């Protein structure tokens, strides 16, 4: 008699995400599905709007990483309008991006990931949360809040306001950096870098103490994708897209505007979210991972000293080959956090960042236009692709978001952990948490668009083939 377990972690409007685990007659895991809702209709919603509105419109679809959409949209607008931003504009765009990365990576680690690492997967869910961190280490909690505030303040100082910044436009940005703001950001950098180092040591310490778990938990071969600079170094704002295969071999490196020659999207009937894959390998062999682990598995180096030293250690984990364990996302994320903090210092020290030359203007004859904008959002590679008519009105919009790029990887991670830990005859909190934790490694953004209250609690249901409920865990 086959059985089915359903995890509904964030069911809100129509269910933003849930996991169903199908058991065979012996009560062992047969198959696992991770279902996600997409930004339904967003692309259609944007069609007919002027292209230059996209940096404002798209950041409003997500309250969590609006700057990522703001920047990717602006880069696509640069391409549509055939205008190259000034060097100062690029530096300022990268600076606001670093602010976004710092607050996002910091929040994910301290709020979502650290409780698993500090208290263990089997600890009481009532106390396996950030509040226990506050209780046991209030100084660490305050540091986490400060790190988040620091990132947000960079966004506010550049974007003019904390929420829905109006900063980047086709051809550049609309305001230079003031000396007062440069000094204010620089003044906190040393303290924030120390917090970043402390977070990194927590992640690394846990992984070193739990090597066996780290090596086996949601560990599987895949391809990897991320932006790199011309020397193969880590790039989060600009560069070429590099893809490496399961053994680390270079599969492709291409300019973002050619992404459709390399990436296709596969549709499964059980998920609203498409599954991107590499055309050259076909489906499903061509699925890939993005985000911190994906990025660190494709690059050759990192252009800041502390992060580079840590990257060398990261590379040794699997003797130079790609690191496969999903839990290493946490370590990779903290290496990136350190990089971003160091990179902020580099940007602030660049004399060009204080220039007033912040925008180039598009040529009048540019339209109709086509344009692709790609950045590395905190969760991975983010694609914005627009086409316009001769009046600059959008005729075509295609977005591939980071969580979409990792769709199959999360599905695979959940399946791998379910097979290893779920016993269909009796569910436990630890089992449920491990499945969640596997997905948490990827820091998916399932709640971007809506957030009305009334969401269902987290539920795992164990169902017999006839629909009889055999077991249930809810919180």
């Amino acid at each position, binding site marked *: 008699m086959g059985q089915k377990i359903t995890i509904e972690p*964030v069911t809100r409007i129509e269910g933003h995400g849930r996991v169903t685990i199908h058991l065979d007659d012996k009560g062992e895991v047969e198959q696992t599905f991770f279902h996600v809702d997409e930004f339904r209709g967003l692309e259609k919603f944007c069609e007919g709007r002027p292209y230059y509105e996209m940096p404002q419109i798209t950041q409003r679809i*997500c309250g*969590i990483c609006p700057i990522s959409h703001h920047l990717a949209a602006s880069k696509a607008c640069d391409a549509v309008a055939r205008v190259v931003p000034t060097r100062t504009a690029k530096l300022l765009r990268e600076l606001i991006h670093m602010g976004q990365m710092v607050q996002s990576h910091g929040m994910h680690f301290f709020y979502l990931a650290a409780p698993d690492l500090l208290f263990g997967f089997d600890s009481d869910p009532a106390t396996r949360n950030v509040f226990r961190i506050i209780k046991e280490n209030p100084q660490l909690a305050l540091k986490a809040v400060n790190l988040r505030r620091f990132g947000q303040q960079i966004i506010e100082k550049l974007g003019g306001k*904390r929420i829905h910044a109006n900063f980047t436009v086709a051809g550049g940005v609309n305001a230079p950096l003031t000396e007062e703001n440069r000094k204010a950001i620089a003044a906190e950098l040393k303290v924030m870098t120390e917090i970043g180092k402390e977070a990194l040591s927590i992640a690394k310490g846990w992984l070193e103490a739990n090597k066996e778990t780290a090596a086996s938990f949601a560990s599987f071969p895949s391809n990897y994708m991320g932006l790199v600079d011309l020397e193969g170094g880590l790039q989060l704002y600009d560069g070429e897209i590099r893809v490496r295969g399961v053994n680390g071999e270079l599969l492709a490196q291409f300019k973002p505007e050619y992404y459709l020659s390399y990436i296709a999207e596969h549709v499964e009937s059980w998920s609203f979210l498409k599954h991107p894959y590499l055309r050259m390998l076909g489906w499903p062999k061509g699925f890939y991972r993005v985000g911190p682990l994906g990025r660190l598995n494709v690059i050759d180096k990192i252009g800041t000293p502390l992060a580079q030293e840590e990257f060398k250690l990261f590379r040794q984990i699997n003797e130079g080959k790609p690191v496969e364990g999903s839990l290493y996302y946490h370590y990779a994320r903290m290496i990136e956090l350190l990089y971003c903090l160091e990179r902020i210092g580099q940007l602030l020290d660049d004399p060009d960042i204080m220039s007033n030359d912040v925008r180039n203007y598009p040529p009048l004859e540019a339209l109709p236009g086509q344009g692709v904008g790609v950045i590395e959002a905190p969760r991975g590679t983010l694609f914005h692709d627009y086409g316009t008519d001769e009046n600059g009105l959008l005729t075509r919009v295609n977005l591939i978001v980071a969580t979409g790029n990792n769709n199959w990887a999360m599905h695979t991670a959940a399946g791998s952990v379910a097979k290893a830990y779920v016993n269909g005859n009796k569910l436990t909190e630890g089992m449920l948490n491990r499945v969640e934790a596997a997905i948490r490694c990827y820091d998916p953004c399932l709640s971007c668009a809506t*957030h009305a209250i009334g969401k269902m609690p987290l539920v795992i249901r164990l169902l017999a083939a006839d629909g009889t409920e055999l077991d249930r865990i809810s919180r």
Partner: protein
Amino acid sequence: MPRTIIVGYGNIDRSDDGVAYGIINLVRQALGQKILEDEDTGLEKLDGEIDSVFLPQLVPDIMELLTGYEQIIFVDAHAGADMEDLNCSKVTPQYVSSTFTHHMTPDVILAFLKTLYQHEPEAYIVSVRAHDFDFKRSFSPKTQSLLRPASDKIIELLKIDLPLVRR
């Protein structure tokens, strides 16, 4: 009257999900305050005995701001089947962890305030039933009809002398 902040949150580009924006503006109107324009959040000017903001999500950054108030009224849309169309209830700190989501709920925000800042404001949530979450900037008729009752409920919580309130 305790110094109060009304915190509405939602996505105004997803129809009823952004209903708090409409409610906040009705309250501001009733209090004789300037209504929020398209890009305003209310964070621009926070110096009154009754302030109000509209945010996309509840995130940790607002905690420091909330320490300056003795009363918080959260305003949201809801989709729960077992709730009244207009819901008003007290909120107390809850120490629960998030599974994946990056935003916080009012009870979690209160728990953070209590634990990190030793601040325990009185708090309520006023929410109305949402019917439509499509990509558009207008409310469904059913939800639209709940705006005024929700605004009245908030004003009731403010315990202001009615003659002072503009309707």
